[in-house]
């Protein structure tokens, strides 16, 4: 109610400020003034003015009042007050004559039924015809309406613009957080954007555990400290816990906890300490609630994507396990090969999607061997031409197996061409150099290395160094020489060698036992 009163007062003041500056009103005064010989125009902001108000308004300007004794001055002001009261009561223009034999008029400034003040003229040397006053009233009303419309438009602009900017911000945030499905990337991004929007110093995102008893810290950013504390919080405890328990925002002077609600509460975003030291407001709460609504969708999408990815990797691993069982006496150290492949990809600055394809391909590249008969796969002697033709079909067969899995679409060219040789002597198409996809050229090196250090029915495995030398020897013929350099660089890495050696050693110990 108080706010309404303040707004109304501000509107009133602004209306008269604009009327005073109105060029049209000034022109009108000039035009009419020229005809009625008026030298004094005035605008009165008060709807029920008292005599001192009128005195202040015209005494200094009206030359006849200035020179008169106070008795005559009071009479003059009384006549003016009567005219104003009449204009207010009848809501119409009112003429008056002053004791000096001069004329004047008062016109009420209105919007609908609401009276805002008056415009008037004194000291007019000529009798003012009623028709002329009607024209004046009509023209003045048009000017007042125009000024009121301008004022309303400007008020509307002032109200809408910050909201439109806030809405645009929310839309941008929606686009920024919706563009990643990686939860580890998404949560810090939401935290950073929340801090930016709220102009706060700390943001913490906690997700609820499976038993729905504890909130686990997933992303905390504190702009004042390099390392942020990661604390678990029990549901119901502290602001974040309470927000989750009650399912509504909890606001204090220096914190604002907003629950992340999907069908159920999945977590909470808590913002602490505004940069300007001011308390969090209802508007902040509204903005954070909107942001939380968007964040929860992005988080759920990322969680679903992660689940789906786990399912895909699980299926791939199961398939790989089935394949491994068809090669008695062999053991493929998958974890190391995946690592070597990914390390090569990372060295080449491949993006995360391509790396993922490489990872899947490194597990599945020989999936097509399932179509090769056991007796061929396990044959201890040299393969006949027909048998070798069967083996050469395995890349295409591998593609047949995975082509129905949409998530593995990008893996197809890697599997299909990983037996192509750099000099064009490979299979299935005899592609050369850059015509072989980059990922397939990487896979060719890693799968050859894998084959060399793995026991086969027809030969004993090489040791790691022998296999590396063999790869180096075939740079430029079987393998892309630039990628061989990358492979050699990766194999010089202690961590990679360590994992590979440990994996092979563990298997030997298992075999011996």
């Amino acid at each position: 109610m108080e706010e309404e009163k303040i707004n109304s007062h501000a509107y009133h003041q602004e209306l008269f400020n604009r009327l005073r500056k109105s060029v049209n009103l000034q022109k009108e005064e000039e035009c009419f003034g020229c005809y009625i010989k008026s030298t004094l125009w005035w605008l009165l902001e008060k709807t029920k003015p008292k005599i001192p108000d009128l005195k202040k308004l015209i005494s200094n300007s009206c030359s006849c009042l200035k020179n008169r004794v106070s008795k005559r001055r009071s009479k003059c002001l009384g006549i003016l007050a009567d005219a104003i009261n009449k204009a207010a009561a009848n809501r119409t223009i009112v003429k008056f004559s002053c004791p000096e034999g001069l004329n004047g008029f008062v016109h009420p400034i209105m919007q609908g039924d609401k009276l805002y003040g008056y415009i008037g003229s004194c000291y007019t040397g000529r009798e003012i015809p009623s028709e002329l006053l009607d024209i004046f009233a009509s023209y003045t009303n048009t000017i007042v309406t125009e000024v009121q419309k301008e004022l309303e438009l400007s008020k509307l602009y002032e109200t809408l613009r910050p909201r439109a900017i806030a809405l645009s911000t929310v839309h941008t945030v929606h686009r920024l957080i919706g563009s990643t499905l990686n939860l580890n990337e998404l949560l810090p991004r939401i935290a950073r954007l929340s801090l930016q929007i709220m102009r706060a110093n700390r943001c913490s995102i906690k997700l609820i555990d499976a038993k729905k008893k504890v909130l686990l810290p997933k992303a905390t950013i504190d702009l004042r400290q390099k390392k942020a504390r990661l604390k678990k919080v029990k549901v119901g405890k502290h602001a974040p816990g309470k927000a989750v328990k009650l399912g509504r925002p909890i606001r204090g002077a220096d914190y604002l906890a907003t629950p992340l609600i999907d069908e159920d509460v999945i977590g909470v975003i808590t913002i602490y300490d505004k940069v300007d030291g001011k308390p969090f407001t209802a508007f902040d709460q509204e903005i954070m609630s909107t942001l939380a609504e968007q964040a929860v969708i992005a988080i759920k999408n990322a969680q679903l994507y992660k689940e789906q990815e786990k399912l895909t990797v699980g299926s791939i691993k199961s398939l790989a396990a089935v394949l491994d069982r068809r090669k008695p006496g062999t053991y493929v150290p998958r974890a190391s090969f995946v690592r070597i492949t990914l390390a090569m990809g990372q060295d080449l600055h491949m993006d995360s999607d391509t790396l993922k394809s490489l990872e899947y391909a490194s597990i599945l590249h020989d999936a097509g061997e399932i179509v090769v008969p056991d007796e061929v796969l396990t044959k201890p002697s040299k393969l006949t031409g027909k048998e070798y033709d069967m083996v050469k079909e395995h890349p295409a067969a591998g593609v047949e197996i995975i082509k129905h899995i949409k998530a593995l679409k990008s893996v197809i060219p890697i599997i299909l061409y990983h037996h192509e040789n750099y000099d064009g002597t490979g299979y299935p198409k005899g592609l050369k150099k850059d015509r072989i996809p980059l990922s397939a050229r990487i896979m060719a090196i890693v799968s050859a290395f894998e084959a060399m250090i793995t026991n086969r029915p027809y030969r004993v495995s090489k040791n790691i160094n022998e296999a590396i030398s063999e790869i180096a020897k075939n740079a430029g013929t079987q393998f892309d020489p630039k990628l061989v350099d990358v492979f050699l660089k990766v194999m010089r890495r202690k961590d990679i060698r360590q994992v590979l050696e440990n994996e092979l050693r563990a298997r030997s110990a298992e075999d011996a036992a």
Partner: protein
Amino acid sequence: MKTIQDFMKSAIHLKIIKFYHENQASIDTPRGIATWVNEERAVVKNALEDLVKLKVLVAHRSTSTTGYSYTRDKKIVARIGRLLT
């Protein structure tokens, strides 16, 4: 290297700086900023990148778009405040 004062001589950079100084919580794309400052998107995009280099703005890059927000550096904000007055 150009300074903040140098960029404030350019009308478009000045408009963008003013916009962010007045709306410090805003995060917007070049298209959005182009609307607020009433300029062409391509020109705005280049100006935004200039201001990122000067650390007046922060770029939040994603695969689909880039959002630009105002610096959180109190010294830069205060300096801009002084320059704008």
